[in-house]
């Protein structure tokens, strides 16, 4: 037949049953004999039994092989749980309890029972044991023995007759269990609602002799005793009332049964044929609780304040510690007050404790305050249906965990945990950007007023900081870089982020050679550009690189046109002339052309200075000049100038070869000197540099507007004229600049004079 999956307990149980039935040890069991007995003991209608036998294939075979037997047993369990008998249901029905057999009582069975009970928590005995489903295990781990009393996972169909044997077998250590057996033996199914409070009522049941009292006795006595008990509870210690009634039992009860023996516990579990939750509140009990509630708080929808509750429950004479624990369990919403539900739960727990039951670690499901209004008993009645859904043995309620109550139970923790997750501070820096992470970061960043485009950007800095590389090109979204810079400035939420942003910024401006060129700032290979970290330079470089068509990495847009062919030749000329390291700068200087205001400035002068320099040379000179202002901070400025002069001469020499664009640039000679002077002054007037650059920005614009000039000879004249025009314009600009700088020079000199005067004035004092 189909594959049958059995749990461990089932496996064990079935194999034992099989061995039990297999008297002759032939590994196959005949239908007659014990098997039939067994199936009859399952208390299923005959036709069901026949159906089972058919399904498992025994009728086909004529006997029960092991597998058939197992299947049959499983089907018995299925049938007992109330599920329709189908072949598929063997494996589909989950957490089926072990099939129960009210077998004929003999020592063997009882031994089986005992062995099962002592072996594992899962009961496999069939002598009236209600085997808890495997899921029950977790409950057992919880509180001690009495906790296990709670979950009863028996099917609806109980064996009324089963417990007849058990009381005889179990050592009567606990009158509780004994009473329970009696009770069950007497009534079985009928008095189900009383099964829960059975343990509670047992003390009262003990008033009667321990014989199998009839139901009437139980039912008759059950209501009054609670009244008595509760009433007495209110006024006097209930134990005293118990004492009056059952001196024998009280001794057992008053012993704190915190550590009942495992066997006792097992027996309790085993021998109770009721699967009802012992923590369930019966109608009578609930009514009583409600009445008590009313004495304190007339409004049933209202709360009992903590102090009143404290007084009330202190009357029970339980130790404060236990009352405190009961409170913790029952005050579900932790508001310091008890609603009706909470009050009933608390009361119920007190009663249980009084009767010797240990307090659970967690609030039992049946005691959890319902979200719906519980005024009507219908809900209470529904609960058994919930706890043990029709027939199939419910797992331990805690393990069953219907969504709502368990959710309720745990929502305080959930709150805290979610709180924790929400509170997780915005610094989780991960190695790899993940979408979730980015979203998280985004959420956190939104608090600091970042626009969305920047948020992915902010993730990247963190990555950078981790990786410490500048493969950022890959990661950056185009156009975000600028935003990133701005956002990095405004970013305040996380110093780490700032640091990483800064590093990123630096990385851009910086000296390390990029592997790939991000659309915005192109890689800047010159290490000597100390000022290159400024944004100006970035922009400059982005622009200037566009011009360079040879050997430059990126081609940023919006590059002002320059005589590109000449420029193209420029670096070619330069490279062979590479005299010193500066030449490398100059070779790259073509990148930095005219947008650099300073550059344009001096280039013009250089052009003028270098007579007979064609445009290439001019441009080169420009480039040279451009280099210089960039390297203002560099010390060898003078050497630069010298080199510049050298290179210029070399340029002239070299340039004369390739191109024959002649420029009547005799006046270029003097301009270099003023250029140098200007450089010097610039060096001295560092603070004025920016000003200077601003002024010379005009120059740049002027230069930028110059159209590229073709190289053909035929257009030389036009080219010359154009260049002359340009030069004149730059002349005027430079003259203006010159005058301004002179003015600044004067100012500075005046300052110097005043300072010197002050110094002189102070000097006589120094002598004193």
């Amino acid at each position, binding site marked *: 037949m189909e594959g049958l999956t059995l749990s461990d307990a089932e496996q064990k149980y079935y194999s034992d049953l099989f061995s039990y039935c297999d008297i002759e040890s032939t590994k196959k069991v005949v239908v007659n004999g014990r098997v039939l007995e067994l199936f009859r003991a399952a208390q299923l209608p005959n036709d069901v039994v026949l159906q089972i036998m058919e399904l498992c294939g025994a009728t086909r075979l004529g006997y029960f092989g092991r597998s058939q037997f197992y299947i049959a047993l499983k089907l018995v369990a299925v049938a007992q749980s109330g599920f329709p008998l189908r072949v598929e249901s063997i494996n589909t029905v989950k957490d089926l309890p072990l099939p129960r057999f009210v077998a004929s009582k003999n020592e063997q069975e009882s031994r089986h029972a005992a062995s099962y009970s002592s072996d594992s928590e899962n009961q496999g005995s069939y002598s009236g044991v209600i085997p808890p489903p495997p899921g029950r295990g977790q409950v057992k781990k919880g509180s001690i023995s009495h906790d296990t009393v709670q979950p009863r996972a028996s099917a609806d169909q109980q064996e009324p007759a089963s417990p007849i044997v058990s009381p005889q077998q179990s050592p009567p250590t606990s009158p509780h269990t004994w009473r329970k057996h009696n009770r069950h033996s007497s009534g079985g199914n009928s008095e189900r609602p009383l099964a829960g409070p059975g343990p509670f009522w047992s003390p009262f049941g003990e008033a009667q002799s321990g014989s199998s009292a009839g139901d009437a006795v139980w039912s008759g006595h059950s209501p009054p005793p609670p009244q008595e008990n509760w009433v007495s509870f209110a006024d006097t210690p209930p134990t005293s009332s118990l004492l009056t009634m059952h001196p024998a039992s009280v001794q057992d009860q008053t012993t704190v049964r915190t550590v009942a023996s495992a066997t006792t516990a097992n027996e309790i579990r085993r021998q109770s044929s009721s699967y009802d939750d012992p923590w369930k509140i019966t109608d009578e009990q609930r009514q009583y609780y409600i009445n008590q509630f009313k004495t304190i708080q007339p409004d049933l929808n209202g709360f009992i304040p903590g102090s009143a509750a*404290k007084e009330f429950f202190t009357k029970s004479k339980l130790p404060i510690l236990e009352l405190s624990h009961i409170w913790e369990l029952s005050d579900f919403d932790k*508001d310091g007050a008890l609603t009706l539900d909470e009050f009933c739960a608390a009361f119920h727990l007190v009663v249980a404790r009084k009767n010797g039951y240990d307090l659970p670690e967690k609030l039992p499901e049946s005691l959890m305050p319902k979200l719906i209004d519980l005024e009507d008993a219908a809900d209470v009645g529904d609960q058994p249906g919930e706890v043990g859904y029709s027939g199939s043995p419910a797992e331990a309620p805690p393990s069953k965990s219907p969504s709502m109550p368990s959710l309720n139970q745990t929502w305080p923790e959930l709150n805290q945990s979610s709180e924790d997750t929400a509170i997780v*501070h915005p610094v989780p820096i991960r190695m790899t950007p993940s979408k979730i992470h980015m979203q998280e970061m985004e959420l956190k960043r939104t608090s600091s007023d970042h626009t969305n485009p920047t948020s992915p950007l902010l993730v990247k800095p963190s990555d950078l900081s981790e990786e410490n590389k500048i493969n950022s090109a890959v990661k950056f979204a185009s156009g975000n870089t600028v935003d990133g810079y701005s956002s990095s400035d405004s970013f305040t939420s996380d110093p780490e982020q700032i640091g990483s942003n800064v590093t990123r910024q630096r990385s851009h401006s910086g000296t390390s050679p990029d592997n790939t060129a991000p659309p915005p700032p192109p890689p800047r290979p010159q290490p000597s550009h100390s000022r290159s970290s400024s944004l100006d330079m970035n922009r400059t470089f982005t622009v200037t690189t566009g011009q360079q068509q040879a050997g430059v990495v990126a081609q940023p847009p919006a590059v002002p046109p320059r005589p590109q062919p000449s420029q193209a030749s420029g670096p070619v000329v330069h490279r062979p002339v590479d005299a010193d390291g500066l030449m490398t700068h100059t070779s790259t200087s073509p990148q930095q052309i005219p947008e650099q205001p300073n550059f344009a400035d001096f280039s013009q002068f250089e052009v003028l200075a270098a007579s007979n320099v064609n445009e290439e040379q001019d441009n080169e000179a420009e480039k040279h000049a451009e280099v210089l202002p960039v390297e203002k901070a560099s010390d060898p400025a003078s050497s630069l100038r010298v080199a510049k002069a050298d290179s210029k001469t070399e340029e002239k020499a070299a340039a004369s070869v390739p191109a024959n664009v002649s420029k009547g640039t005799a006046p270029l000679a003097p301009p270099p000197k003023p250029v140098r002077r200007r450089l010097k002054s610039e060096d001295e007037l560092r603070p004025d540099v920016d000003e200077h650059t601003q002024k010379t920005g005009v120059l740049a614009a002027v230069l930028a507007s110059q159209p590229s000039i073709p190289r053909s000879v035929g257009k030389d004249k036009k080219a010359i004229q154009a260049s002359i025009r340009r030069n004149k314009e730059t002349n005027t600009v430079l003259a203006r600049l010159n005058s301004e700088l002179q003015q600044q020079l004067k100012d500075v000199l005046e300052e110097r004079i005043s300072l010197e005067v002050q110094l002189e004035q102070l000097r006589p004092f120094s002598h004193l």
Partner: protein
Amino acid sequence: MENELKFHYMVHTSLDVVDEKISAMGKALVDQRELYLGLLYPTEDYKVYGYVTNSKVKFVMVVDSSNTALRDNEIRSMFRKLHNSYTDVMCNPFYNPGDRIQSRVFDNMVTSMMIQVC
């Protein structure tokens, strides 16, 4: 036993630091963030963190210095959890303020928190 005394002593000395921090903050300490006092002082073996509630109840946490994985945020969240559990304990009418806290729920929470960290 020895360790317990040592920790007791450490906690008591750190109370001085807590008081110092509280007085330094002045009147404007209603903000939740300021309830967390941060690292009070590090010794060679341990770091001590402080947290004070609005009702001047002080939580002091002593952490092993070798536990470098513990971050400030985690300490903060631990204090927050402590605070919540403490208020739950307070809500219990059977609890007298000033008593030793014997709530099982509280103990479980603390234990789980410490296990989480270690």
